[in-house]
């Protein structure tokens, strides 16, 4: 470099400093989306941009891995270039080969898809901007996740959902989530022309339902997406503070796009009356039996039998599944019960025999367990009743026992009448208690039975969480949700060795929710743990970060928004990962890497 050039560089030095040059490696921490042409136009303005390209084995430009990545920078006269190549998600940089005598160009052969970022800084030279390139994974499997966005009630935005495709082998996905106010719909819910309290549910064909609650004057408001098809389900309910059921049936209206609900009437015709009776095998009336009809999303009102066993309900003319139960009697169902436009009657007669069952619940220390919650469920019992529809022939209805009782002050069960069969009994102590949920299997035969149900202390569940390298992962949040009873959910976190111990109810299967810290680049998971497993080891797979900002339509960040990722194709309706947006509206969800598509080689026997 001649003296003139040196002087020129010295003259430029203040400009570089003012421009925030010599940021060194700090710039490599900038998310890929903020680099190069992808955004962040004001970052490093005036600095020299690294030029990056990807070529395949034949030297042709490519956008897929594997590829040869070449980076260069126009920096004549600069000295001491220091290049860094990082793959988003990796903790260590990837080595590069210098291919220019002055070090102004480097290359690296990479095999993995994802976002690769070159950055360079000089001992003496211009400031630079990093540049990223994202390589597709042509073999990557793609899984579509449904992202459910639940804004705070106070935000005024309705819940909404969107689909996010995630391809295996990539570094991650940037997905901003924009909340939309939707189209407001308000109106008056009327039952047979009279305003009524109730529920207005517009069942979405795709996405979340729009729901409004009508007050005692029938007034409600909700928000819809104007182009989504909704089916209105209008359910009259007792006015707040009242227990008198309205004399009318829920109504399932015609599906139409959301915009057409603006200004539309929300009238409930009222349906027709369906009456009937419930008796036992000796034709004695059964009081307090509950009878409900349901046709898909459309329920009837609820019929409750009086002391004579008589009941009535309202239903729209349709074909329903009938469900009924009564204290000390099994639940039973019968499909294809047709309610004609003129209404009908249903004569229900229990046919099953029952045996007296008593018992008591004790604490682990032997004392009586008062107010313990005892859930009794039987295996399917076969036919337990007959139903005569509209005076027709009696049809058998299958059923099973589902009962919840509370122990009395002395720990005894209330007297029970149960059909013969095998029962699963879950006992939950009244809290707070040192004992935990305890599950039992009991049998009822033809002779009266007495159940002795001792509660057990919570049992340890030792959990070890390991990463792909088999090493323990520290700081993993754990929630063990018991799938019996009300669903206790002890929480904890793994220690430095990746181990944790939670205490769960004896005999209860557990859904173990495993949420590693984002810094691990591992995906969270839910693991079903069998009852009394004692220990479980969870291996976490590679995670793909899906991140972005939750924003209002004007671009304002929306904090405290819950974002749930649901995998409809994974066989679970529960979210597989959840995030709550921070003060900048940013959410971060690690989803399992879908991996690559499995190729069928076509071999045959």
């Amino acid at each position: 470099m001649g003296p003139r050039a040196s002087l020129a560089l010295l003259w430029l030095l203040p400009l570089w400093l003012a421009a925030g040059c010599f940021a060194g490696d700090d710039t490599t921490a900038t998310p890929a989306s903020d680099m190069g042409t992808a955004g962040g136009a004001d970052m490093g303005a005036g600095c020299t941009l690294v030029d990056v390209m990807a070529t395949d084995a034949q030297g042709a430009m490519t956008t897929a891995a594997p590829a040869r990545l070449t980076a260069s920078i126009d920096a004549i006269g600069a000295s001491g270039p220091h290049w860094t190549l990082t793959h988003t998600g990796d903790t260590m940089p990837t080595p590069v080969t210098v291919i220019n005598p002055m070090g102004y160009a480097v290359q690296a052969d990479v095999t993995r898809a994802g976002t690769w970022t070159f950055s360079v800084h000089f001992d003496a030279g211009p400031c630079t901007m990093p540049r990223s390139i994202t390589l597709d994974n042509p073999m990557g499997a793609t899984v579509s996740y449904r992202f459910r966005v639940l804004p705070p009630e106070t935000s005024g935005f309705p819940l909404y959902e969107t689909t996010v495709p995630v391809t295996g082998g990539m570094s991650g996905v940037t997905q901003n989530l924009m909340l939309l106010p939707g189209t407001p719909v308000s109106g008056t819910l009327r039952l047979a022309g009279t305003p009524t309290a109730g529920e207005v549910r517009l069942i979405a064909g795709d996405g979340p339902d729009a729901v409004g609650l009508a007050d005692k004057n029938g007034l409600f408001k909700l928000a819809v997406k104007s182009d989504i098809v909704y089916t209105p389900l209008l359910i009259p309910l007792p006015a707040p503070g009242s227990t008198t059921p309205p004399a009318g049936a829920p109504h399932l209206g015609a599906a139409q796009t959301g915009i057409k609900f603006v200004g539309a009437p929300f009238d409930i015709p009222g349906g027709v009356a369906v009456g009937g009776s419930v008796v036992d095998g000796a034709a004695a009336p059964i009081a307090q039996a509950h009878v409900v009809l349901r046709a898909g999303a459309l329920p009837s009102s609820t019929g409750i039998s009086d002391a004579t066993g008589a009941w009535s309900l309202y239903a729209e003319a349709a074909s329903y599944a009938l469900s009924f139960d009564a204290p000390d009697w099994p639940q039973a169902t019968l499909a294809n019960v047709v309610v004609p436009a003129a209404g009908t009657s249903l004569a229900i007669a229990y046919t099953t025999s029952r045996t007296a069952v008593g018992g008591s619940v004790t604490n682990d220390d032997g004392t009586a367990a008062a107010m313990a919650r005892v859930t009794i469920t039987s295996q399917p019992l076969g036919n337990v009743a007959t139903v005569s529809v509209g005076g027709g022939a009696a049809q058998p209805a299958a059923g099973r026992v589902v009962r919840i009782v509370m122990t009395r002050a002395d720990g005894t069960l209330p007297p029970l009448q149960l059909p013969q069969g095998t029962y699963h009994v879950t006992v939950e102590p009244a809290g707070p208690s040192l004992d935990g949920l305890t599950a039992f299997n009991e049998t009822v035969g033809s002779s009266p039975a007495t159940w002795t149900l001792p509660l057990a202390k919570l049992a340890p569940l030792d959990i070890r969480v390991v990463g792909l390298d088999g090493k323990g992962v520290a700081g993993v949040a754990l929630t063990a949700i018991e799938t019996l009873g009300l669903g206790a959910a002890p929480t904890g976190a793994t220690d430095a060795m990746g181990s944790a111990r939670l205490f769960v109810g004896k005999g209860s299967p557990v859904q173990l929710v495993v949420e590693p810290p984002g810094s691990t680049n591992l995906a969270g998971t839910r693991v079903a743990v069998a009852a009394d497993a004692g220990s479980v080891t969870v291996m976490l797979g590679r995670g793909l970060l899906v991140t972005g900002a939750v924003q209002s339509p004007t671009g304002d960040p929306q904090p405290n928004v819950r974002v749930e990722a649901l995998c409809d194709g994974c066989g679970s309706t529960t979210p597989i990962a959840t995030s709550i947006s921070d003060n900048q509206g940013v959410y971060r969800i690690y989803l399992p890497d879908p991996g690559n598509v499995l190729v069928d080689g076509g071999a045959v026997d």
Partner: protein
Amino acid sequence: MKGVWALLPLLASSGCLFLDTLNHAPTIDISDGITTAIKGSPLTVHADANDDEDGPSGVHLEFSVVAVDDQPFDRNCDVEEHTSGGNYTVTFYRTGTFEVTAAVTDRDHATTKTRVMLSITDAKPLFTGNGTAAQSSGHDICGNNTAGDPITVHLDGAVMDEDAGVHASFAGCSANETLRYTWRVTDWPGGSKPTLTLFDGSTCAAPTAASGATLVVPNTLMHVCLWTDPMLFSGVGMYSVVLDASDGTTLVTSGAANITVGPDQPPCITGTEPVAGSYVVDRTQTQSFYVDGAVDDRDGFDAGISYVWSVYRAADGTWTDVPNYSLSTYELDLSSFGVGEKLKVRVEALDRTLQRVPAATCAPDVDDCTVSSCATNMNVCHKWKTWDLELR
């Protein structure tokens, strides 16, 4: 003859000894200037000397200084002098009254003196910036602090004292003035006397038997911890804390940090999904409930606020808490409930105090328990919310 020589000085001083041509005594004049200064600041006395015969360049000028305030005078440490031509620059390192004498002598040894009195005063410490004690630790969104929790306090500003720490450069001289800083609790709402301890940047030193309502600190940068009376947890009160700065002569006091303590406010649920209310649900479907917003004076949503979920069955006539469950979301499997059964699902927010709503505040059958809390707008706080479900 010997007697004649003895008379010479007298004659010379009287100007009556004429050994040569008649000599006039030199003249000297100290021009008007600053005769007061603060300790440690240089002060310059300028003297104009002249002589009719020798001219200004022919005279010898000397300055000297003595203390005239009857205080001990350490010539090495109390004063630094520098003479340059007619300028005599002197810096005093103690306060008092001093006399500077300028003596001019001509070539004929005739001398003339003049004097000036200097008054050296002390610079008082001053607070700069806001000059107010201020709370460092965060208070809750109601502006209160939790009684019993240590509260850190710092000086918002600085203390300036021009002469603090100055001393002569002579070996062994030290400053006769250093600033002393003392934090002091000037007012408290009753209860036990508050104490102050040092804050090391991350934690508060625990109070000891020696701790009290005053605390000497080495500098103004140091934050201190105010320990309030934990027994005031249910009341509201104010503590006032100031910083005293003294240079040994003058004490100045900062503006006070007024720190209020108040009772912990209940957390409030600001939103749920679905909106709390009455619903008819499919009893074959698991139902999900969320708290999508909660506020508290001291704890945050998903950071300190926990939840108690409970279920009410009309058949039982009692509420049952979901055991060991504190999450903001809850899923209820309805398969074990009866046909047409009516349930209530309730969520109550708890803050770090884990206090449930007192029974006298909200009846159990109230679906929406509202209490007062300055953590929310209009002071209306939804302590719990309830979903009424009918299973069909």
